[in-house]
């Protein structure tokens, strides 16, 4: 926590994006998280991704639940809409907001407590409904706000700060999201922005439910020897299987990728995710391939990262419900209240 505001001065040669903004224009207020918290790096990666995508900040809605991770949206995108909701209930609020106004970009920021414990049910259902949103979990395996008890994602066999072993099975949110039908599933590490930033850009550009599980160490309660969520452990055990480059639709794709070397997947807006798998047999468009790889690495105690699964062109909630293709606040009185005749017709149709 820092007592004075960050200076508004910035580097004189900072690049600007298509909107004429620097990345500093996408920042939020000063972080009150612990010094060294991985969540601040996740926030910085979101800032960088939104800057690079030239997103107008006022067209983004940030939603969160309760926890250190759910505090984090305050510290990025200060000019966006924000809703800090009830513990574990961010998916419901996001669903409501999204149904009312489908024109905003929805960014949910949650944690392992918020999504894997109290909010596990909500999480499962928002995934299977395929809400068009980006859902980031800053995952540190500990309840930081309540002084570091192991969370539901803490790996069985890992040690707590006091030396006690975690005995319960850890929930793997990536596997859960895959099995529930997420169409964009990735895992990354807060300490590796080179990997994380393109993943966030891809997720924000993806039409459908995009899930990113970000290993984000708790420097205060879960960064010790024996933890499987510490900076050192993650650096030593991370294996980046599928690296992803985000290529915006406006730029010319100059290098055609060689088959087997990289795979270009077109997104709905014409941008491209260029994926490179470290293992040629891996198919990032196959769920079974993803499940197998995740399990194989888990058995070895490794943390598999990268864009693990992508299904482009899948339908999402609005399409499944056949909703009106405008934001509700953009509809006029006539459209919202079409009159007696229409009501009569509707009633007739049920007889």
């Amino acid at each position, binding site marked *: 926590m820092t007592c004075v505001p960050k200076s508004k*001065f*910035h580097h004189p040669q900072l690049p600007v994006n298509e909107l004429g903004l620097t990345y500093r224009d996408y920042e939020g207020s000063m972080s009150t998280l612990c010094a060294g918290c991985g969540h601040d790096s996740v926030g910085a990666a979101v800032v960088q991704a939104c800057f690079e995508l030239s997103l107008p900040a006022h067209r983004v809605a940030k939603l969160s639940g309760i926890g250190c991770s759910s505090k984090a949206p305050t510290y990025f995108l200060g000019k966006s809409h924000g809703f800090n909701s009830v513990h574990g209930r961010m998916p419901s609020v996001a669903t409501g907001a999204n149904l009312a106004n489908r024109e905003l970009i929805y960014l949910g920021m949650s944690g392992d407590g918020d999504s894997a414990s109290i909010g596990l049910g909500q999480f499962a259902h928002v995934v299977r409904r395929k809400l068009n949103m980006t859902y980031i979990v800053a995952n540190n395996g500990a309840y930081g706000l309540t002084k570091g008890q192991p969370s539901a994602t803490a790996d069985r066999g890992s040690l707590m700060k006091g030396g006690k072993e975690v005995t319960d099975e850890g929930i793997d949110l990536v596997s859960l999201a895959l099995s529930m039908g997420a169409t964009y599933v990735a895992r990354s590490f807060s300490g590796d922005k080179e990997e994380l930033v393109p993943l966030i850009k891809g997720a924000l550009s993806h039409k459908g439910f995009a899930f990113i599980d970000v290993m984000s160490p708790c420097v*205060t309660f879960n960064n010790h020897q024996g933890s499987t969520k510490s900076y050192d452990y993650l650096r030593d055990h991370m294996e980046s299987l599928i690296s992803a480059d985000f290529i915006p639709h406006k730029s010319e794709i100059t290098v055609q990728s060689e088959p087997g070397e990289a795979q270009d997947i077109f997104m709905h807006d014409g941008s491209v995710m260029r994926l490179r798998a470290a293992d040629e047999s891996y198919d990032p468009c196959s769920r079974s391939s993803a499940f197998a790889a995740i399990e194989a690495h888990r058995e070895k105690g490794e943390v598999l990262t990268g864009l693990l699964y992508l299904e482009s062109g899948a339908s999402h909630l609005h399409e499944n419900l056949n909703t009106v293709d405008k934001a509700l606040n953009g509809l006029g009185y006539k459209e919202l209240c079409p009159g007696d005749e229409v009501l009569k017709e509707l009633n007739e149709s049920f007889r």
Partner: protein
Amino acid sequence: MFPTDTKDPDHFHKVVDCQWACPAHTPVPEYIRLIAAGRYDDAYMVNWESNVFPGVLGRVCDRPCETACRRGRVEEQPVAICRLKRVAADNKGTLDERFPKVPDEKNGKKVALIGAGPASLTVARDLLLEGYEVSLFERGQQLGGMMRSDIPSFRLPQNVLDEEIETILNLGVDLHSGVNVTSLKEFLKRDYDAVFVGTGAPRGRNLDLPGREEATNIYMGIDWLSQVAFDHVESIGKRVVVLGGGNTAMDCCRTARRMGGENVTVVVRSGYDEMKASDWEKEEAEAEGIPILDYRVPKEFVHENGKLTGVRFEKVRKELDENGRRKLVPTGEPDEIIECDDVLLAVGQENSFPWIERDIGIEFNEWDMPAVDEETFSSSKAGLFFGGDAAFGPKNIITAVAHGHQAAISIDLFCRGEAIESRPARGVTLASQRMGMHDWSYNSEVHHDQRFKVPMVEQSKALSSIKIEVELGFDPLLGHDEALRCLNCDVQTVFEEKLCIECDSCVDVCPMDCISFVQNGDEGELRGRLQAPSNNLNQPLLVSEDLKTGRVMVKDENVCLHCGFCAERCPTGAWDMQQSIISIPQASCRSRS
């Protein structure tokens, strides 16, 4: 790159741009903090130790520090360092008890100083404090050299100068004023262990044009200024042309404006932007209704019936020749005659040593000046030293003071029988400023105020007399606010690689993108891979040893705000804010610390 050696005093010294740029290496941020705290006596003493004339320099310094100030790279205007120095001088109390005392026991060595300008007075102070007996010879009755004769009192009141010279005289100078040394050969026969020449560059450069000979109303600018200073001249014609574009020209035109000149015009050969005068001096002259006309080459002093009536100019423009050199070519327009009653020539100054015989073992260089060593300030004759404008031609007061310090070191070494080439070394000490988790002993908050303007006397009043100081100076409140603009560049970001866990917090929080964690490489190539463009090669990189991941931490010092956020957000204390105190040796063993 190799890991940075932060024990090398120059590394962190370079980060303190103002101190590095100051010829006397005054610890600027240190005294600015004292001014912000209202500790004017302490701020004055910090200055006095380094630059001897804080009250004078707080008004008329050339301010190389402000050109260098990091604030000018972060926003538009540097900190008003010079004017803050004046705040300390204006508001200090009686400091008699604070000035160091001369040792009771003298060391038995006698030193003579010729000329009583800033260089000699600095040598006098430094050596008196070491126990030397110092004799000072000045041809005039009043001391101060060009500080008194060339700088008009509306910029530098006499009493400010008197007071600071008095402080030095009080240390026990053996003063010989009104004594003109006319032969160095004879002078060297006297019983001195060392002699220092600080006689300045006393001769104005002439402009040999048609009509120069018969004219009676054409004056050398510096001579005319000193006649004004010593009350030998009381007025000047209503229409005055000043030739020249340096600070002397600016002093001439503004003085003429106060001596009866109603239409005063400055004319320069080349472009306005190429003028040697400081920007602020040009602005102040123009604010007093003095036009500055450029690209006009003087051709002739025009006379009618033996009386000066004007100056004829050829109009020129700037062109670059094939070698990229600038030349002035006539535009072909008809010549312009500017009518005037008097002309002041301020086209340069020269050194003049008619009193130094050429056969006494002193080597002269190709410009017929005594050859002087740039580090030791020694002439080719052992025991004879030069400094100030007398050494390398016209510069400025703060340079003369710096020369004085170095010459005093040489004289001290020489008198002790040691080699004058083995200079005492600079040093650096670092002291943590951490007071608590988020608490620093300096004001780490970056203030966004623009540079404050110095209040001025109402112009009609200012122009009514040569004795009225134009600037009122900052009052304590304005001084406080301006002082807070200082970025505290001497509070350094010090990195301890063993503690770093590479969490990226410092990278994320740094408002200026100074910090990068990257693979090592050669400097040129490495600068291209940093978090933000890194193209100010005058500013060093701070490079760590290899970290756990095999990368290094590289910090570009260029636009660091010294806000301390890296250290506040660091979970392990790998970053710390530490004040660098650079010790700059002086002859007096009280070398600053």
